[in-house]
């Protein structure tokens, strides 16, 4: 059985301008010790789906579907039950390390709070454990750092503190939402090494949400590509990069500047058009308006996910490198 089993997760928001369908029937599983990469551009629903798992969305959100974890349906569970899961069994790391730490409390207090609340440690024991945790995320001189305030730390250090807080209760799942996006590349390399190390040593399963296909290539075992609230492709990481099937995935990979990515004229491959508005769910492939392979069928039916290669799912009427069935 999977560690986390999400079925038909849909999220819509009621706004003044009408209903926004942020996530549409998303299903996925997460296995023990697995690093699952969730990739997509802004507004594709990757963050919203993660937040909905712990009921972290505002009241305007309507979440349907199920998410089985540890014998509990996270979507239907009462808040009282979720409190024991949030931060304890499933922990979050957010993109912006400055705004997700409280600027007016010392690092030690913020770490200790989690330990005291969830594990019932005494203040003294919490402090000792906090130092161990800072050491675990390779922060130098943890006994000194623990007395510092967030503003005294650099961006990379703050993100390490966030990871330390997330790991405080030895969670089964770590959900990292763009954990390295705000960081410089040399710092990013260190954080990715740290996450790899955590998975190896603690066996934590990681959901890595990112727009960066390079980061996913570095660390993920399996990848989900999302577009306009829907999962359009899913495959083991090497399979996805070697044999991308969905034209959107192929487009994304071609759009990244790197040697060999440009076409004969030395231009990067663009994806024309823009991400559709999510105010109405199209009864068609959401990518159709931007897709070079779009035809009548594409514009009139929603493609269902199908396994086109072993453990490689794609929601496209014309998958494959050139649009032919592989």
């Amino acid at each position, binding site marked *: 059985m999977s560690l986390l089993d999400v079925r038909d997760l849909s999220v819509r928001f009621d706004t003044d301008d009408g209903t926004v369908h942020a996530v549409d029937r998303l299903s996925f599983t997460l296995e023990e010790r697995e690093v699952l990469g969730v990739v997509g*551009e*802004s507004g594709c629903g990757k963050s919203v789906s993660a937040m909905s798992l712990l009921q972290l969305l505002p009241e305007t959100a309507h979440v349907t579907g199920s998410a089985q974890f540890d014998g509990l349906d996270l979507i239907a569970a009462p808040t009282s039950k979720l409190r024991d899961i949030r931060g304890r069994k499933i922990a979050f790391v957010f993109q912006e390390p400055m705004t997700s730490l409280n600027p007016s409390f010392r690092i030690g207090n913020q770490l200790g709070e989690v330990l005291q609340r969830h594990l019932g440690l005494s203040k003294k024991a919490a402090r000792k454990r906090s130092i161990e945790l800072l050491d675990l995320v390779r922060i*130098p001189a943890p006994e000194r750092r623990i007395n510092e305030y967030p503003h005294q730390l*650099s*961006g*990379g*250090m703050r993100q390490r503190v966030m990871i330390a807080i997330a790991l405080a209760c030895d969670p089964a799942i770590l959900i990292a939402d763009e954990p390295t996006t705000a960081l*410089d*590349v*040399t*710092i*990013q*390399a*260190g954080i*990715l*090494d740290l996450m790899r190390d955590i998975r190896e040593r603690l066996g934590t399963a990681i959901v890595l949400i990112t*727009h*960066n*296909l*390079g*980061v*996913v*290539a*570095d660390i993920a075992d399996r990848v989900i590509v999302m577009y306009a609230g829907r999962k359009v492709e899913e495959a083991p*990481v*090497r399979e996805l*990069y*070697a044999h991308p099937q969905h034209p959107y995935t192929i*487009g*994304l*990979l*071609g*759009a*990244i*500047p*790197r*040697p*060999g990515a*440009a076409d004969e004229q*030395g*231009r*990067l*491959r*663009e*994806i*024309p058009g*823009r*991400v559709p508005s999510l105010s109405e769910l199209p009864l068609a492939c959401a990518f159709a308006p931007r897709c070079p392979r779009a035809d009548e069928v594409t514009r009139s039916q929603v493609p269902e996910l199908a396994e086109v290669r072993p453990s490689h799912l794609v929601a496209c009427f014309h998958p494959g490198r050139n649009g032919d069935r592989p």
Partner: protein
Amino acid sequence: MSVSANGDTPTLEVQDLVMHFRTGNGIVAKGATVHAVDGVSFSIAPGELLGLVGESGSGKSTVANCAVRLLEPTSGTIKLRGRDITRLSRREMRPLRRDMHMVFQDPYSSLNPRMTCGQIVGEPLRVQKLHRGKGLDAQVSKLFDQVGLRAELRFRYPHELSGGQRQRVGLARALSVQPSLLIADEPVSALDVSVQAAILNLLRDLQKDMGFSCLFITHDLATVEYLCDRVAVMYLGKIVESAPTKEMFAAPQHPYTQALLSAAVVPDPEIQRGRSRVVLEGDIPSPISPPSGCRFRTRCPLAHESAPASEEEDPPLVEFAPGHRVACHLVRAGTPAPALVDASELRA
């Protein structure tokens, strides 16, 4: 001495640029000096694209702001097409503003929300008294067409446009007066990948058509490789290495450049997972008290090899190969730096 020089008068020539900021006598720090830029020299030839690369806090944006005189440099000279503009007054600068324009990182805050996009693009033309009335309208429509925006978007306000469209408006505004120098400060880093590609392609096409020089500031090495003719790498207020793009990516010398190249992630698991990478210890030091001697020594994996020189003496930029300059104690003309990782692994 400038980083590059060919026969023509450079479009932009920056010499020994120094920009120090005094921090106020605040509660936290009692008046300190931030050494944002410390002796930077480079030049950009007509039609050349120079990429200025560095991590946050390296001073690359400060260089750009000094070059267009948005900041008053502490010392050094800035020459635009051979003319010293370092100490010109605002009034004297005004006619020269035609010759250099800037595109900013954030397409949300760099456009006036109370002007229509057409007014925004036409403003430089109006201020420079190049076009007015019907002629202005026609010119603005032409510019919209050039940057790939539908003409009817002229009457829309910035908030009605997507990020990519807004950055096109920013480009149209910058290029409206046909400047000889475009300074682009992280113009695509706020955009989604698929939109980035379109803006980079557009910038490249426009440069080919119009022939302007460009100072392209970014933290992303892959973008530089795609777009620029030459690259200069900055670390803590100084240029540590500069070279033609091909050479820089084929044979990076400075340990920092090597680390930067090795840390960049490649979107291919087969390659990415087979590469070794240099993980730098610690963080970029504070520009309030930069390390003595070589500024990179506190994080340099090779620091022990160049000690004690690295602690005492700031390595000058020396010509390692034609057009390839490096500021490292371990690099002499013709003698390469020790490779931190195999050069073939640095590249995808």
